[in-house]
């Protein structure tokens, strides 16, 4: 702790809800006040808008993919158009939605509030991150308008270097630039968490969301530079034919896979760790119990981040790596499942005998736990060499990672948005519709992706636009489920926007949660707290404050 408590600050930070007052949303007006803001809360909202655009675009591609797959014949798109569709779907969803997603939106908004600071350590760099992300996004959109890329989001060589003639370099540049945004965000979070904590806020008093964000930042800092250099090498290979990945010149295409997965496996934890952090907050708040085994959950985040760097070879079991490497990577991959399982057990133990309330965020959190468990267990199956040789590159893989990234990460993200929306906007959203959305998304998700496990096990390969007729029934189920899922995602979009104008005013602490962010007003003032909070207790001292009547009464 290097925070020097300054003289004039007193303990306690709550402020009575007076009606007309300035907060971060109405302190200044105009486009310029947003585009040049250095307030972490406003930057979070800039991210929220931009990642939503990319989510919608990626979702559109998904709709087109599922339309094509509703029939066995490849009748809607030419094969090379189909290749571009699934590639751009993956690129947009992974690099421009999920990776920046929760860290940049919820992390930006919450970390300073949760640790009792006035802002992140480097507000200007924070704004720079958003601009880098946007510039990277514009490159990618520009490439999209010029036909996109058709290599798969994995950009495997020699396909990406010697064969295709789509916009590999433009998209590569886009991802490269967005990568620096990710690095700077991670750096900002790490420094902030180390140096800006409020007096009394020791490491083991940090909310688990902050631990999750910290672990995520470590991966962003250590992993992202490696994919940056890998992309640079692909671009150099394409333009200058330098031979690093070209067997004709003595290079090795497998080296690219190593560099790519050295980042991209840990990157899957960039997508899931923040959601795990959200779920820890939600489970404690809505069971009104301290989280079971706080330290285990905290260290499990760090454990996942560290172990995640040693398992990348499980993506290359059938790429011709040595059998010994395969065995080692197999064992190490199963080890990562241990900290993941610790978290699931601890959430379950927290629920046990808790006084559970079925609010919208909690529904999303429970959905997360179920879907993540399925995704994680199938991951362990895939880490088994014999099974992977059978299902590698089939729909089983697709189902596995969608259960984690869509079922898990996005459920957690939406749960978090619903939980902190009253804090972010100062408004409540309709309770009935939001609970319905959680249920619709859960059902739609399972109908979409469960059949894909079966399809993959039966041998349907990924990345083809046509398939044998006997697979049609399951594919139609999947496409139908996708329609439900799409509708489910539209619902929050509608009622969130509605709530900004028409939603009832939210009190400071609608859920009766502990945590510093709930001790300031909704929405928070520009400087977050009117007086410097001082922390004297561990997190999750439930059962604590009373829930606000607005929540129980409903809207």
């Amino acid at each position, binding site marked *: 702790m*290097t*925070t*020097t*408590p*300054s*003289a*004039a*600050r007193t303990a306690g930070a709550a402020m009575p809800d007076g009606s007309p007052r300035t907060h971060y949303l109405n302190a200044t007006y105009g486009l310029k006040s947003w585009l040049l803001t250095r307030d972490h809360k406003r930057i979070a909202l800039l991210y929220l808008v931009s990642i939503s655009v990319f989510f919608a675009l990626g979702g559109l591609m998904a709709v087109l993919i599922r339309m094509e797959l509703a029939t066995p014949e490849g009748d809607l798109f030419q094969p090379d158009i189909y290749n571009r569709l699934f590639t751009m779907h993956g690129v947009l969803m992974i690099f421009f939605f999920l990776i920046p997603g929760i860290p940049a939106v919820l992390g930006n908004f919450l970390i300073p509030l949760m640790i009792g*600071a*006035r*802002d*992140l*350590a*480097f*507000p200007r760099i924070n704004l720079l991150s958003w601009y880098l992300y946007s510039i990277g996004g514009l490159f990618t959109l520009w490439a999209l308008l010029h036909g996109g890329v058709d290599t798969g989001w994995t950009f495997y060589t020699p396909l990406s270097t010697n064969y295709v003639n789509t916009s590999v370099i433009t998209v590569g540049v886009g991802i490269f630039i967005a990568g620096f945004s990710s*690095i700077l965000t991670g*750096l*900002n979070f*790490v*420094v*902030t968490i*180390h*140096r*800006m904590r409020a007096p009394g806020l020791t490491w083991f008093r940090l909310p688990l969301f902050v631990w999750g964000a910290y672990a995520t930042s470590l991966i962003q*800092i*250590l*992993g*992202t*530079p*490696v994919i*940056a*250099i*890998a992309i640079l*090498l692909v671009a*150099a290979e394409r333009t*200058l*034919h*330098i*031979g*690093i990945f070209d067997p004709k*010149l*003595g*290079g*090795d295409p497998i*080296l690219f896979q*190593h*560099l790519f997965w050295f980042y991209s496996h840990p990157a899957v934890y960039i997508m899931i760790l923040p959601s795990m952090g959200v779920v820890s907050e939600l489970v404690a708040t809505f069971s009104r119990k301290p989280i079971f085994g706080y330290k285990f959950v905290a260290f499990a985040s760090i454990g996942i981040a560290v172990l995640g760097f040693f398992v990348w070879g499980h993506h290359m079991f059938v790429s011709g790596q040595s059998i010994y490497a395969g065995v080692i990577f197999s064992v190490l991959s199963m080890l990562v499942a241990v900290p993941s399982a610790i978290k699931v057990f601890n959430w379950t133990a927290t629920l046990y005998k808790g006084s559970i309330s079925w609010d919208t965020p909690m529904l999303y959190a429970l959905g997360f736990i179920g879907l993540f468990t399925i995704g994680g267990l199938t991951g362990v199956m895939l880490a088994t060499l014999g099974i992977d040789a059978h299902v590698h590159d089939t729909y089983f893989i697709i189902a596995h990672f969608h259960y984690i990234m869509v079922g898990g990460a996005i459920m957690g993200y939406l749960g978090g948005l619903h939980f902190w929306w009253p804090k972010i906007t100062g408004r409540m959203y309709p309770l009935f519709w939001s609970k319905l959305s959680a249920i619709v998304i859960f059902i739609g998700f399972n109908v979409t992706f469960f059949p894909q496990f079966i399809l993959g096990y039966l041998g349907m390969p990924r990345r083809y636009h046509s398939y044998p007729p006997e697979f049609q029934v399951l594919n139609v189920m999947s496409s139908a489920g996708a329609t439900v899922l799409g509708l489910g995602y539209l619902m929050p979009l509608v009622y969130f926007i509605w709530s900004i104008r028409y939603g009832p005013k939210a009190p400071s602490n609608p859920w009766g949660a502990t945590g510093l962010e709930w001790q300031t007003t909704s929405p928070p*003032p520009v*400087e977050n*707290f*009117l*007086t*410097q909070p001082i922390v004297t207790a561990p997190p999750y001292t439930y059962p604590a404050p009373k829930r606000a009547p607005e929540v129980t009464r409903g809207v």
Partner: protein
Amino acid sequence: MASEGHGHDLPGLAHHFDSYAQQRDSATLGMWTFLVTEILFFGGLFAAYGVYRSLYPEVFRASSHTLSIQLGTFNTVVLIASSLTMALAVRGGQTGKGKLAAALLVLTLILGSVFLVVKGFEYHEKFVEHHVPGASFHFEGPDAPHAQLFFSLYFLMTGLHALHMIIGIVLVGYVAIRAASGAYTPENYNFLEGTGLYWHFVDLIWIFLFPLLYLIGRH
């Protein structure tokens, strides 16, 4: 020290920090973290170098011998000297001697430029000898086809290093101007210190590149 809610109005202390010490600690930690990412950035190339050198040791040695050890050594000395002037400049900024710091920074900048000019001559030589990967590449010796890999790595690694040097020179120029106008005080010379760390880091990368590229098998 602090006015209600809005921190303070101390010169050179950003509104969201409580003290100069907190601000400096944050800046330093941020810079070190950034340098860790740089290590991993270069790490990808070092990994590629390791793989191919172990696959083709003979031709890597032969290719390495075409580089000018004199120019390489000269440049190494130049960079080490520039690290010294940089360290002294940071000390100057820290003790409030702005003019001295500025002069030392200009010296650093000149040394850095000398390095780049010499590097330019070396690149030119490679062009003349057809050692630049591509259509006109030509190399005589054992296992010649794989020589191109060595030179690809040579240009990528030294090129990326040179790019970092150029960024560094721009930064040094900027802090030199700021130092001359007395912007750095004992309380806040964080940007100067950060630039110094960056400069030392870029030097350090060269200290690894030099033996790996120039000195293979010369012991």
